[in-house]
C-alpha cells in the first residue's frame, strides 16, 4: 500500500491554513493510501480539546465550517494523528489536553516514518 505523511505546522492564528492538510489526508485515506499527519510547531494547538469546535475555517462568503468537522472525518477514515513532546511544550500542552486518538511520538520515530513513507508533504 502507498503511504503519505503530512506535516502540519499551522496553528490557531492561521485558520485559513488549518484544514487543507487534514482534508488532503482524508482524501488520501479514501484512495486506500496509508496516511498520517504529524502536527508540529503550531500544529498541536489545533488538537487541544475544545479548540477545533470553535476554530472556523474561513470561506470568502463568511460561512466557514468548524475545523472539528475535518478532524472527525479524517479520524473516521483511519488517518493517524501524531504529535511530539517538544511541540506540546512550546504551547504549554500535555497529551491529556489533547483530543483522543492522537499518538505521541519522538523525533526519531518521525524521521523513521518519513523515510518509510512514499511521500512527505509539509504545510
Amino acid at each position, binding site marked *: 500500500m502507498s503511504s503519505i505523511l503530512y506535516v502540519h505546522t499551522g496553528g490557531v492564528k492561521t485558520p485559513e491554513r488549518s484544514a487543507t492538510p487534514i*482534508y488532503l489526508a482524508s*482524501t488520501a485515506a*479514501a484512495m486506500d493510501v496509508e496516511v498520517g499527519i504529524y502536527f508540529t510547531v503550531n500544529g498541536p494547538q489545533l488538537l487541544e480539546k475544545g479548540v477545533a469546535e470553535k476554530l472556523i475555517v474561513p470561506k470568502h462568503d463568511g460561512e466557514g465550517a468548524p475545523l472539528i468537522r475535518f478532524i472527525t472525518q479524517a479520524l473516521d477514515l483511519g488517518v493517524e494523528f501524531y504529535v511530539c513532546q517538544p511541540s506540546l511544550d512550546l504551547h504549554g500542552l500535555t497529551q491529556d489536553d489533547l483530543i483522543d486518538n492522537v499518538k505521541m511520538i519522538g523525533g526519531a520515530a518521525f524521521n523513521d516514518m518519513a523515510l518509510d513513507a512514499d511521500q512527505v508533504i509539509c504545510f
Partner: protein
Amino acid sequence: MTTEMAVDQTLDCKGMLCPLPIVKLSKAFKTLEQGQVLLLIATDPGSRPDIEAWKKRTGNELVQQSEEDKVFKFWLRKTV
C-alpha cells in the same frame, strides 16, 4: 439520448465539494459486493481528475462517464 447502464447504488454528491465526493465514494464502495456498479453524480468541477486518480489508486473500474450542464456522472464497478 444515451442508454444508461443498470446500477446497484446511486450516490448523489451534487453541491458537495472536495473532498466529500471521494470520501463518500470510498465509504459507499466498502458496502458493495465485487462486480456491483455505483453511479456517482457530482457537480464539483474537479470531479473528473479526482475520479481518475481514485480508480487508478484503488484499482476499481470506471465503466462509463458523462457530463451534461456541469453535472458529472460516473459509473464505477467494484473490481477489488
